[in-house]
C-alpha cells in the first residue's frame, strides 16, 4: 500500500477511513457494497486528486479498476440473477448445480398449481368470526380496572400505527460506526495506556464490530496516536497509546 493511496480517505455512514481498507472490506463482503455510494467515493477521489496537486497514474488506474469491480458487485447485489452466477463462480461453474436447481424450480412451479387450487377451494369455507354471542358479553372483563389513560394511548398508538413499510434489515446489516469504534478504543487506551487487541474487542458482540474496531485502530495508527506491535504472524497485537492522555 503506497502512502499516497492510504492517504485517500472517505467518510461514509458505514465507514470512515482509508479507501483502500474500505475496498478490501467490500471485496471480502465484510461491508455491503449497497451501502457505499460510489458517486460519493468518486467525488472524494477527485477532490483528493486536486488537493495533492496532480494525478498519479498508478493511483488513478487502481482507483478506476476498483470502482469497476465495485460497480459490478453492486449490480450483482441488486440483481440476484447475477448473484446466483457469482455463487457458481465460487465453486467453479457447476453444470450439476445448475441442473439440480432447474429441477427444483420446476418442482416448485408444479406445486404452485396445487397451492392455487387449495387456496381457491378454501375460500368456499367461511368461518364465523363473531366470537361469543351477546349472552356471554358479561364475561368480557372490566377493562378499565387496572388501566390508565396512558396505557390506553399506548394501545391506541399500536393499533392505529400504519404497518411498517419496508424491512431494510438485510440491506444494512452494519450498525457499528467508525466513530463509535474510535471512541471505544480511545477511551480504553487513555485509561490504560497499553492493551492487547483482544482486550479492545472484549465487549464486541459481532464479528463485524471487531472488524470496525480493527479499522479504528488502523486509523489511530495512521494518525500516529497509537503504536502497534505484533511479535509473530497471527500473534497477539500489542497496542500502545502515544497520544495525549
Amino acid at each position, binding site marked *: 500500500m503506497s502512502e499516497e493511496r492510504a492517504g485517500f480517505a472517505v467518510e461514509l455512514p458505514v465507514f470512515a477511513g482509508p479507501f483502500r481498507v474500505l475496498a478490501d472490506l467490500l471485496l471480502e463482503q465484510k461491508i455491503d457494497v449497497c451501502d457505499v455510494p460510489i458517486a460519493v467515493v468518486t467525488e472524494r477521489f477527485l477532490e483528493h486528486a486536486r488537493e495533492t496537486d496532480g494525478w498519479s497514474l498508478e493511483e488513478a488506474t487502481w482507483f478506476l479498476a476498483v470502482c469497476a469491480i465495485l460497480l459490478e458487485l453492486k449490480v450483482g447485489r441488486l440483481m440476484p440473477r447475477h448473484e446466483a452466477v457469482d455463487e457458481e463462480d465460487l465453486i467453479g461453474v457447476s453444470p450439476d448445480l445448475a441442473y439440480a436447481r432447474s429441477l427444483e424450480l420446476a418442482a416448485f412451479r408444479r406445486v404452485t398449481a396445487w397451492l392455487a387450487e387449495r387456496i381457491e377451494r378454501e375460500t368456499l369455507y*367461511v368461518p364465523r368470526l363473531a366470537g361469543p354471542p351477546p*349472552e356471554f358479553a358479561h364475561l368480557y372483563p372490566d377493562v*378499565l380496572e387496572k388501566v390508565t389513560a396512558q396505557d*390506553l*394511548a399506548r*394501545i*391506541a398508538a399500536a393499533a392505529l400505527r400504519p404497518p411498517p413499510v419496508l424491512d431494510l*434489515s438485510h440491506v444494512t446489516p452494519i450498525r457499528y460506526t467508525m466513530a463509535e469504534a474510535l471512541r471505544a478504543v480511545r477511551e480504553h487506551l487513555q485509561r490504560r495506556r497499553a492493551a492487547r487487541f483482544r482486550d479492545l474487542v472484549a465487549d464486541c458482540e459481532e464479528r463485524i464490530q471487531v472488524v470496525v474496531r480493527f479499522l479504528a485502530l488502523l486509523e489511530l495508527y495512521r494518525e500516529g496516536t497509537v503504536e502497534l506491535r505484533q511479535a509473530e504472524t497471527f500473534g497477539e497485537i500489542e497496542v500502545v497509546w502515544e497520544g495525549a492522555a
Partner: protein
Amino acid sequence: MSERSELLRDLEALLFVSDDPVASVELARSLGVDRREVDALCEELARAYEERGAGIVLRNVAGGWRLTTSPEAAPVVERFVLASRHVRLTKAALETLAIVAYKQPVTRHQIASIRGVNSDGVLRALIERGLVAEVGREEGPGRPMLYGTTPEFLERLGLSSLADLPPLAPLLAAADERDAADGAA
C-alpha cells in the same frame, strides 16, 4: 338433494356467518324465496336443532333470526371462554376501547378494518359496561351507527374531557423509531 334441503343448508350457512339477528326479508332476498317461506324454513331448522339436542339453537329475536349457543351448554361455554379466551378478550376489549376513544365517532366497520377482525361482540360488551355508546349515525349509504365513549369512560380514567387523553403523536413517532432500530439490527 331436494331443493328444500338445499335451502335449509344455505339458510344454516347464512345464519352461521351472521353476528346480528337477520331479518326474514334479508334472508329471503339472499335465498331467492319469499319471506313466509324463510320463516317456515327457520322454524324447521330450529326444531331440528332442538330434536337432536344440538349445541346451537335458532331463535327469532329483535325482529330477526339468530343462531346462538344452547342454554344447556352455557356453563361449559363460560368455562371455556374464561379459561382459554379471557386474555384475548381483554386484549380485544382494550384495543377496541382505545380505537373508539381516539377515533370517535367511529363505525363498527371502521373498527373492524383497523383491528382486522370483526369486533361487534367486543363493542357490545363495552356498551353493556357503559364505556361506549351509540352517538349518532353517519351520513351516507346505509347510515351506519356511530360509536363514542361515555361520560362514565372519562370518569373511570379520571379525565375531565376527551381533550385530556394523552396525545397520540409522540407515541406513534416513538414506535416508528423503535421499528427503525429493529430494522437496522
